[in-house]
């Protein structure tokens, strides 16, 4: 994968006849390097999920361009996986089949190869016992593990996660953060990750860089200075972390003054 560039990207949601279109993003420009773990933070409704949808190709920008290695993304597609807030697993397929299905459809594996890959990934995410269960039989945390396994099964170069842990309790969030870090750090090559969260501490624990989004536009970007692997109990109390946290919190308050563009 090459560098991903958003060049003055805008997006407006279509409106009903006679009503003004709602502009979700306006002139957003940023660059994401290959293999980078970028966290997007910002207040609710600022356009984080919209940005992720544009990167995933689920929506097309109404202005500007998204470039991959200098070429429009539509001409130079990236193998992308997206993990939703609420898993996005097919409820009629057991967990193992969900993961195998993803492997089969994106990597062209045979059924047997896909099944073996699914078992391997479910073991890696600690869900081998849940392989034969339906998603409705799993807890929220287990569903997100399954969704992560399904995303990894696609061997994506670009991994997008849209608030994947926001619906979970603190213990599950901590466990899944650790799992994501571990899987990402051990992957070769490491996929580029864009992780959306409104939890500042989560962003500082996971990201190489944290980008703040004001409503509809991109704000400052902060490199995260901590080496990996990161221990939560060490990072969160460090002076550097406290400083970054304070800066980001102030940006949240500042953004309350911003209207949508």
């Amino acid at each position, binding site marked *: 994968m090459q560098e991903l560039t958003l060049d003055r990207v805008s997006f407006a949601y279509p409106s009903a006849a006679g009503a003004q279109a709602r502009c979700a993003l306006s002139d957003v420009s940023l660059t994401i390097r290959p293999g980078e773990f970028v966290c997007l933070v910002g207040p609710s409704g600022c356009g984080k999920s919209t940005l992720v949808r544009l990167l*995933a190709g*689920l929506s097309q920008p109404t202005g500007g361009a998204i470039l991959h290695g200098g070429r429009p993304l539509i001409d130079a597609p990236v193998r992308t996986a997206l993990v939703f807030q609420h898993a*996005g*697993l097919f409820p009629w*397929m057991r967990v193992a089949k969900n993961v195998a299905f993803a492997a089969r459809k994106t990597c062209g594996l045979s059924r047997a190869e896909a099944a073996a890959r699914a078992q391997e990934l479910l073991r890696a995410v600690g869900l081998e016992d849940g392989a034969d269960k339906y998603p*409705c039989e799993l807890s929220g945390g287990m569903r997100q593990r399954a969704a992560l396994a399904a995303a990894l099964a696609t061997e994506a170069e670009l991994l997008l996660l849209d608030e994947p842990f926001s619906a979970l309790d603190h213990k599950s969030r901590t466990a899944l953060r650790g799992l994501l870090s571990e899987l990402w750090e051990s992957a070769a090559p490491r996929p580029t990750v864009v992780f959306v969260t409104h939890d500042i501490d989560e962003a500082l624990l996971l990201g190489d860089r944290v980008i703040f989004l004001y409503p509809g536009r991109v704000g400052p970007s902060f490199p995260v200075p901590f080496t990996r692997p990161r221990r939560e109990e060490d990072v969160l109390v460090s002076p550097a972390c406290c400083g970054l946290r304070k800066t980001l919190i102030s940006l949240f308050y500042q953004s309350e003054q911003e209207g949508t563009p």
Partner: protein
Amino acid sequence: MKHRPILAHVLFLLCVLLCLTGARGGKHSPAMFLAALCLIEAAVAVSCVRGKNARAAGDVGALLFLFFAVWQTVTHFGWADPILFPTPEAVFAVFWTQRAEMAAGVLSSMGLLAVGFLLALPLGSVAGMAVGRSPRLRGAVLPAVRVLTPVSPIIYAPYLVAVMPSFRAAAAAVIFIGIFLPTLLSMSERAAHLDQTLLDTAQMLRLSRRETIFEVVVPYLFPSMLMSLRQSFSTSFMLLTMAEMLGSRTGMGYFIRKFADYADYTKVAAGILLVAAVITVLNRLLDRLSTRLVRWTPAP
């Protein structure tokens, strides 16, 4: 702790006692009625042993036995017109004396119902999916469907009888309309509100349009199809018996109509019980089918 439906057992014994004491003076053999009572008691007992829905089974059993006990008491003591309210022994004896005609009627009715369901349910589902996924079709088709759906198709029966080649074809058409329209309506509304996350997942996996329809949309809508089947089932049975009463020469509805014309209310009552029994059995089969086929839906 296993549930013991004491009331059901007591009422069962009361019914048996009433049956045996009433049978001494009666002209009908109580064998079929006793067999029916034992069958219900066995069903209650099996539910209690299994532990599944034991309490409900006990309550339903108790209500049934209470109904029979009241019926026996009223008829044995001559408190009701014996022509209009025959004894349960007489009614259940019909299941033996008219067994051939009843069996033929059940088969005929099931055949008609099957034709209606096998045509209307898939066509209604496919049409519903197509309409639901197209805003233009939704705008054009749904207003008319919403007007037509509440209209009982039995109203079209005189016209269908004139147009269709036979009464049986007209009856099938009535059932078809009664299932097709509600299925189209419910499926289109469900298809219009598909879970966007699942569609996004399908797009992320680069599924083709065909794959998205058959591997995502159809499985997603399958519980709705089953729900349409269950909801249509009661309506279609009602339409079936009414349609058969129109001019059919066979079937459960025809059985009831024929003996009503002869004022033989013993057989009419037996016909009604037959319809109730068939509906009960088919409903249970549908329940089991639903449970097996959509195990993945969360428990209510």
